[in-house]
Structures are given as structure tokens and as C-alpha cells.
């Protein structure tokens, strides 16, 4: 008997993920994505990873979705129409078929091959202190590299997004 909470959360995740891809207006797609990500945070809570769930909500929904919405608002033609031409024809159906096949194959593989479809071990909560301690002791180098990565990507994104003066002079592309 599956856990009803898990079922509800899975339904939220899956349905809003589909809505994100199929919504008519791009910005409502972003809302769907936000709900899907919140659902994934709920799954993390169900797994007992509270800090991770808060991290997910604050970073994904609080920052990434806002950035996506802002970009969607910028990426519009002057007429106000959204700058996209969807064509859900043959390709869409083929894509759905392929994706369904892949998902089915992976799901079957996981269901059959994974040796322990066991219960979650009952255990004490992972203490919040351990998180910082493990991060600092075992993953120190990775942390500094992550800092460099974040810095480099931030500089890269800014350099990409700004309008070069010569680009303006070059005229319409």
C-alpha cells in the first residue's frame, strides 16, 4: 500500500512538470516548473532531508524561477506576442514516444535490478552540525572549486548579457 502523501507529492511533481512543458504561455510554464520544484522539495522532506528541501526552495524557486520569469519577460517581440512558434506535430509525438520508452526502460530496470527495494532504515535525524562538519572536513577542495565555479559563471553570464558597444554599431543582425 503506497503512502498517500508520497502519491500526492508525486502527482504534483509529474503533473506540474508536464504543465511546465505544455502550458500555452511561457510564463505559466515557469509557474508549473516552480510547483514541480516545490514538489521535489516535498519529496526531500519525506526522505527526511529538511535542510536540502529548504535549499531547494530558496535556490530553485526563490532565485532560478525568478530569473527565468525575468528572461521570459525580456524575450518578447515588440508586438507583444511571445517569441516562440511551437509546432506540436510529428516531432512532438515522436519525442513523447521516445521519452516514454526511455522512462519505462529505466523504471523497469530500477524496479527489477536494484537489489534492495527495502524499507528506509529507522534512524536518528542527521544532525545539522554534521552537515557543516562533513562539508568542511571531507569536501573542502570541492567547496573552494564550487566557489570558483559560481564566481566564474556569474562573470560569464554578465559578460554574455551586456551589449557590446561595437555590436550596436554593427547594425541589425
Amino acid at each position, binding site marked *: 500500500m*503506497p503512502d498517500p502523501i508520497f502519491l500526492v507529492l508525486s502527482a504534483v511533481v509529474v503533473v506540474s512538470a508536464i504543465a511546465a512543458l505544455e502550458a500555452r504561455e511561457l510564463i505559466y510554464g515557469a509557474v508549473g516548473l516552480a510547483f514541480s*520544484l516545490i514538489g521535489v522539495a516535498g519529496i526531500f522532506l519525506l526522505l527526511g532531508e529538511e535542510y536540502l528541501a529548504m535549499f531547494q526552495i530558496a535556490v530553485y524557486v526563490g532565485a532560478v524561477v525568478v530569473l527565468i520569469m525575468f528572461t*521570459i519577460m525580456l524575450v518578447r*517581440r515588440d508586438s507583444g506576442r511571445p*517569441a516562440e512558434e511551437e509546432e506540436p506535430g510529428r516531432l512532438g509525438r515522436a519525442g513523447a514516444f521516445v521519452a516514454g520508452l526511455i522512462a519505462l526502460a529505466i*523504471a523497469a530496470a*530500477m524496479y527489477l535490478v536494484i537489489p534492495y527495494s527495502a524499507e528506509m*532504515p529507522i534512524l536518528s535525524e542527521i544532525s545539522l552540525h554534521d552537515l557543516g562538519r562533513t562539508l568542511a572536513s571531507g569536501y573542502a577542495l570541492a567547496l573552494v572549486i564550487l566557489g570558483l565555479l*559560481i564566481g566564474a559563471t556569474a562573470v560569464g553570464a554578465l559578460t554574455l548579457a551586456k*551589449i557590446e558597444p561595437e555590436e550596436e554599431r554593427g547594425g541589425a543582425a
Partner: protein
Amino acid sequence: MEPLSSYLVLSSVLMGIGIYGLVSKRNAIRLLFSVELIVNAANINFAAFARFSNPPIMSGVLIVFYSIAAAAMEAAVGLALILVAFRLNGTIDVRRLNRLKG
């Protein structure tokens, strides 16, 4: 309690949706949505495996932290690229962004 395989099935379904989006959509921002969905599917797997091993593995959780951080910054760069593509071509339809083709 849910067994491990439920989480894995959920994550593979999510990944299937992401792949569907990547294959069939032409809008660059929707492709970014699909990538985020796939990353999230992977994150569910990491967290589930970390929690279900006995004793739970701390690094399984930490790798999700790193993964979320990297995915967020990747989204920032991707959106900047989309902005540039829109400014140069007036469209974000990936089928029309083929000016690099010889």
C-alpha cells in the same frame, strides 16, 4: 513507509518528461525547463540512495547541494545565452538559430 523503488520510479518518470521536452520543444526556454527537470530527477535519486543505505551516507546529500548550486548557475548562464540569441536573431526558436551552419 515507501520503499526505495517508488522514489526511483518517480525520478525516472520525471526524467522521461524532461527528455520528451528536450526532443520535441523548439523554444530555448522550454529546453532549459527540461534540463532542470532532468537535474531534479537525478537529485531525487541521489537523495533516495543516500537515505536508504544503512547507515545513511552524508556525501549523497552533499552532492545534491553541489548539484543544485551548479544547476542554478548553469541556468543563469543559459538564460544569458538566450538573451544574447534573442538580441542577435530576434527569436529563441532553436530551429531558426542555425547561423553557425556553414
